[in-house]
């Protein structure tokens, strides 16, 4: 039946359903497939970032640089496309490469110099955000034909409901990452690393390669989220996605990933992002409530889920003993 380790994800899904149902009862026009699809459209970039973050947290680390990396990606894409006239099919692979290299470097520093991930990615965050301003302190609007068409293309379902290209990319990332996490050697190494680095090393797993690749993957995901974000905003700006790293961490935690590492699901993270989306939608439907309630509610949810996780993990250790 339902395994204990699946319980947090199960709770997350139930919470999502309850919140959506509550919203539907309370507000007219809330219960429509388009509202649900809009959750995906508006949070596509957050889903992609949070998937990368899931891998990092499962491996026992943390990545604070993702929000800045998104801003840097939008900035680089905007300059290259808009000011230098580079074609998008060159720019997009290039920024993905830059993102991966950035993550790879942070991973290498974390691993080889044994500096805490928190500090290294913090430096990465400062660096990426600062580089944005080195490029320009102003917004660069993009009016390139490829980007505008990517932003405006709608994929219709029967009944007139639609999603954007970004949603397709995000869903593809979720499915791909789930496969990567649960059915590949890299995924299993990541879980083992998060469970216990020492044991992973003694088992003969490639600890160095796995750890560095996890951060490189997170960098790749944030660059990809940056590309999607560029479609969404059609501009490059150094203040894009400020504080997004916290949203991503919150989504991962609400999705049932254990912060000590070793336990977690990509699918849970997906639902964690959707819960944040539902909160925002409810608040926008309420109208009178302001955006700061989002932060307070997310804080409360974070607290709830962390206490929940704590209860489960302590019970599990007492079982062993």
């Amino acid at each position, binding site marked *: 039946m339902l395994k204990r380790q699946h319980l947090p994800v199960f709770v997350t899904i139930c919470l999502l359903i309850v919140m959506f149902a509550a919203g539907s009862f309370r507000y007219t026009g809330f219960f429509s497939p388009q509202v649900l699809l809009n959750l995906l459209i508006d949070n596509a970039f957050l889903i992609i970032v949070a998937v990368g973050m899931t891998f990092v947290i499962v491996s026992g680390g943390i990545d604070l640089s993702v929000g800045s990396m998104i801003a840097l990606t939008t900035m680089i894409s905007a300059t290259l496309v808009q000011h230098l006239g580079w074609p998008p099919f060159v720019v997009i692979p290039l920024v993905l490469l830059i993102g991966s290299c950035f993550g790879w470097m942070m991973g290498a520093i974390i691993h080889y*110099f*044994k500096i805490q991930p928190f500090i290294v990615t*913090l*430096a990465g965050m400062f660096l990426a955000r600062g*580089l944005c*301003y*080195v490029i320009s302190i102003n917004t660069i609007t993009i009016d390139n034909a490829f980007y505008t068409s990517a932003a405006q293309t709608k994929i219709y379902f029967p009944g007139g409901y639609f999603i954007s290209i970004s949603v397709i990319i995000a869903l593809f990332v979720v499915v791909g990452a789930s496969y990567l996490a649960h059915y590949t050697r890299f995924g299993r190494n990541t879980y083992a690393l998060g469970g216990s680095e020492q044991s992973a090393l003694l088992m003969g797993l490639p600890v*160095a390669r796995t750890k560095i690749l996890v951060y490189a993957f997170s960098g790749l995901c944030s660059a990809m989220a940056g590309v999607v974000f560029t479609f969404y905003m059609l501009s490059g700006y150094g203040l894009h996605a400020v504080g997004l790293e916290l949203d991503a961490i919150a989504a991962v935690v609400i999705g049932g990933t254990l912060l000590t590492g070793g336990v977690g699901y990509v699918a849970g993270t997906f639902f964690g992002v959707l819960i944040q989306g539902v909160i925002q939608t409810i608040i926008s439907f309420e109208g009178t409530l302001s955006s700061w309630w989002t932060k307070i509610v997310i*804080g409360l949810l974070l607290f709830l889920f962390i206490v929940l996780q704590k209860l489960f993990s302590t019970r599990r250790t007492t079982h062993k003993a």
Partner: protein
Amino acid sequence: MTKHHLFYPLVMLAALLLFNLIYSPDFFSIQMRNGQLYGSLIDILNFGAPLILVSIGMTLVIATKGIDLSVGSIVAISGAIACLTISRSADQSALQLVLFVVFISLIISVAFGLWNGLLVSGFGIQPIIATLILMVAGRGIAQLITGGQIITVSSSSYKYIGAGSLALLPFSIFIVAAMLLIALFITRKTALGLFIESVGCNPEASRLTGIRSKIVMLAVYMFCGLCAGIAGLILSSNVSSADGNNAGLWYELDAILAVVIGGTSLNGGRFYLMGTVIGALIIQTLTTTIYVIGVRPEITLVVKAFVVLIVCLVQSEAFRKAIVHRWRTRRYPLEREVKRHA
């Protein structure tokens, strides 16, 4: 002499000041105006006061192997509560009112510290995550209090906290000095400092030797909340307004940076309060320097990033060994350790 823990931070600070002296010779000039001293050096102390305070609290938290991400939010909340209460009352300059406001703000800041401490020591949640909750929710609470606006007050007695002067010097410097002396006295002249170091090294072992590690942790987080609360009062009183959105933004990161520059290891244990103060002064001087030489202030972030990395690399034993051994083996240090034990 190079072995002393303050050596490298002091060299760094001296180098920064020397650079400033060469770049603009009147950097060290201090003038007398309206019964108060003015000059770049005084400015560094005055504007750096909130950061120094927050960093002092952060040092003790880091000494217990913790971290407090919520200080920036507490700074914002404390200023917001104070300014809201003052702006609601009839006589804004009344001394009684200001004292009451300061009291209330500090009580609430300590209560937030208590909450963090309870989560960390009572529930046993990782400090990064436990304080992350308040970092996210606290910013929302601050915005809720100010209604998302900037609350301005016109209270001369409240303004004194951050912008007043005592004996020719800004009053905020005296607040910082007082807090620093209190922290130094408690940690160096009583056994509490030893307890904090012991809890940071191993909470379980110190509990077994009879130290109430949970109480120590609780006290440290409350002290950190208090420091952040005072910093919030200074910051908001200096500009006579509270901004729930931006007050204290990124303070947690600057404070952690100051602590690390000061030589305190993030792994807990031994801590250096004076090192932290110098670290905070280095950060403030760096910011001022960047303004003085006319580089775009946004580039501060890039400079800070490299400073963080360099400081951490120098502290990292693996890095120092790597320089010495020129990468004799490219293996992971743990791997070598395992080999040695096997």
